[in-house]
């Protein structure tokens, strides 16, 4: 006899289950749980907008309040994905406007969003609250003006415009204009800030001068996160005293960013908030190590630090001494295209931080030299690492002490850091490093590889060994057909695979596509004609992803989905 709980009770229980993977598990238990769950799922995350179609989503989940979509592959950030590739938000927004009148939140990443879509958003959803567009393109301030004008309840808006907020709007919680290239009307900004008592996050753009910052801060002392505009002024102005007074009034401030064009003599102005800071982004500030060190030593509660390599090893030593709560460190290159360093940032800085900061979980580090011994030390110091992205700037750079590949060093990272979810490799690497990764990196979800490996064996180790792999992106590696074709089933368990400037043949792509109907195998070739490809030709760029939506129909001419029936490919 099977006793089942009433639907309302089950629904109430399910409301405590928020993780997608748990919700998915719940829906697989039995038909009635599937039905109940799909009616009460409120948040949807679609990691690849082509993996599913908008109508499939709305058909299965009719009562959604929040949708998050991602479009282009990650390598689009580095110009590897050509113009016009895709990632169009329009069909999604049209469908959602039809099916989800109570939708409250839309988050889009690396997608193309038009002004028409923004206008549709602004008029379709009565209860709309959150719009986040990160790394998106295709719209102008006109579109965002529509949002501001029509969405009286918009509380959190990361975007590009400003002065169309109606005077009655007082509920704004977050305003982010950091990416806006042009100047904004300062008086409109000041008025908006002044009538938004709930404003917690304010990120200004570079065009807002330092002289105006204290005015804004005085109007919004409740801010939790602030992104400054340009952080310098004429040398004889008395900006300093009004600025430090304004910062004194900000008792809730926990996060600082911005700092374009920094004049170091103004850094002391925010000393009063340093002891409370948990997040500091100085990655646009080209200030020297002593000034950075002075600031960092005042911030014992820092959890996240983004900085340029001007911080140097000495600055990172200070981080190791002062910032015992640090979880995330990102060090960006100030001069990425110069082969020799003009700053003293070496592997030592990262080693120090790994020693001194017991909670360090996430690392992004650009440097010009690395050694296996340093990597081994880091791995032993910080087995709790979850994300490790190392970029040794020169491709194929060996261990600078022994001139050997960095296989053993990265091997130590994956062996000791058992919870590692994201890894980016660089430096001189052979197939051996992939052997280590395949053997140890069982929780790895995302792997980025460039200029590495010797043969298909390397790729085979990864595909056959990394059980949790979701996203794999590879460029300029000697990986060809064999590993791919020996691991076809694996590709269906992953979200996507990107390979560019490798050695995969057109024929292998056709074969893969035939064998695996649930994959879209997209070939990108900007140079030649895709129609005249011989099977043995290597493909320039390849993007393979699982999908239940079939081949897409919105590609530009230089991309083809390899059609299973071998008729003329779809374009």
């Amino acid at each position, binding site marked *: 006899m099977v006793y089942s709980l009433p639907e309302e009770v089950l629904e109430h229980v399910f409301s405590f289950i928020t993780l997608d993977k748990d919700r998915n598990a719940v829906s697989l238990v039995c038909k009635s749980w599937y039905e109940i769950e799909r009616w009460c799922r409120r948040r949807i995350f679609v990691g690849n907008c082509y993996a599913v179609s908008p109508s499939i989503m709305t058909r299965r989940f009719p009562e959604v309040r929040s949708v998050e979509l991602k479009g282009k592959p990650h390598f689009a950030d580095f110009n590897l994905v050509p113009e016009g590739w895709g990632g169009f938000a329009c069909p999604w927004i049209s469908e959602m406007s039809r099916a989800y009148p109570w939708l409250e939140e839309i988050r889009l990443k690396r997608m193309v969003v038009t002004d028409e879509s923004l206008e549709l958003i602004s008029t379709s959803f009565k209860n709309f609250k959150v719009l986040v567009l990160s790394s998106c393109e295709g719209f102008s301030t006109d579109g965002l003006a529509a949002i501001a004008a029509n969405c009286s309840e918009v509380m959190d808006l990361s975007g590009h415009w400003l002065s169309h907020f109606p005077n009655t709007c007082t509920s704004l919680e977050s305003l982010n204009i950091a990416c806006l290239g042009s100047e904004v009307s300062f008086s409109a900004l000041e008025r908006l800030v002044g009538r938004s008592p709930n404003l917690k996050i304010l990120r200004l753009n570079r065009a807002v001068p330092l002289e105006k910052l204290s005015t804004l801060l005085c109007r919004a002392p409740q801010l939790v996160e602030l992104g400054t505009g340009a952080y310098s*002024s004429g*040398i*004889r102005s008395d900006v300093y005293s009004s600025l430090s007074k304004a910062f004194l009034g900000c008792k809730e401030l926990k996060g600082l960013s911005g700092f374009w064009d920094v004049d170091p003599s103004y850094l002391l102005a925010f000393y009063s908030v340093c002891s409370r800071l948990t997040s500091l982004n100085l990655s646009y500030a080209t200030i020297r190590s002593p000034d950075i060190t002075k600031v960092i030593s005042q911030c014992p509660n820092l959890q996240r630090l983004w900085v340029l390599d001007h911080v140097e090893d000495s600055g990172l030593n200070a981080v190791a001494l002062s910032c015992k709560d640090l979880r995330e460190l990102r060090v960006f290159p*100030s001069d990425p295209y110069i082969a020799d360093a003009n700053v003293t940032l070496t592997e030592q800085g990262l080693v120090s931080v790994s020693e001194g900061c017991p909670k360090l979980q996430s690392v992004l580090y650009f440097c010009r030299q690395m050694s296996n011994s340093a990597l081994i030390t880091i791995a032993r110091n910080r087995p709790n690492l979850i994300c490790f992205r190392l970029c040794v700037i020169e491709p194929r750079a060996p261990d600078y002490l022994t001139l050997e590949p960095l296989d053993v060093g990265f091997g130590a990272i994956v062996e000791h850091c058992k919870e590692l979810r994201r890894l980016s490799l660089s430096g001189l690497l052979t197939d051996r490093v992939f052997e280590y990764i395949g053997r140890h990196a069982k929780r790895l979800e995302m792997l980025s590889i460039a200029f590495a490996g*010797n*043969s298909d*064996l390397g790729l085979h180790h990864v595909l056959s060994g990394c059980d949790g792999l979701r996203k794999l992106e590879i460029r300029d590696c000697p990986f060809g057909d064999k590993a791919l074709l*020996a691991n076809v089933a694996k590709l269906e368990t992953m979200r996507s695979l990107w390979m560019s400037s490798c050695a995969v043949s057109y024929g292998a792509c056709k074969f893969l596509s035939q064998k695996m109907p649930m994959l879209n195998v997209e070939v990108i070739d900007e140079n030649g004609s895709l129609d005249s490809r011989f099977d043995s030709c290597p493909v320039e760029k390849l993007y393979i992803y699982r999908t239940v939506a079939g081949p897409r129909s919105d590609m530009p001419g230089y991309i083809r989905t390899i059609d299973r029936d071998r008729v003329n490919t779809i374009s």
Partner: protein
Amino acid sequence: MGPQGLGLEITELRLGLPGGGGERSEKKRRVVCGGGGGGKNRDMDVVVVGWPPVCLYRKKSIQVRKMYVKVSMDGEPILRKVDLSCFQGYCDLGMALENLFHCHGIGEAMKEESESGEYVAIYEDKDGDWMLVGDVPWLMFTETCKRLGIKKRSDANGIVPCK
């Protein structure tokens, strides 16, 4: 799903010494001229698309430009040149000018509206006007400054403010 029927055996994937035989990509990308040679700050010989992996927005924000401008001084026939992009701000510039021309007080004169210091620093802007150094934010100054001049305070009566 095993490799059977695909015509490919896993045993064909050979273990080899690094750099040893077996599969090798025919495509060699010459990324950077390896090895020694080249002075400091040599640029990468071949620019590889998308490497290092820095996103476009960040690349644009931290562009490095060389900004050499001539510096002339009253009574000195030989001019000097300084690279404005090397300086952090007015103080740095002031010190550098003082060192170049062995004259005191330039840095102070930039900061204080005082009458101390024998010399003041002036610059010619994009419009061709001669301006007093120090009024505008540093980066704006570096963008508009075409040349620098060091003048005796007594000769610069027109533009130097008096207390």
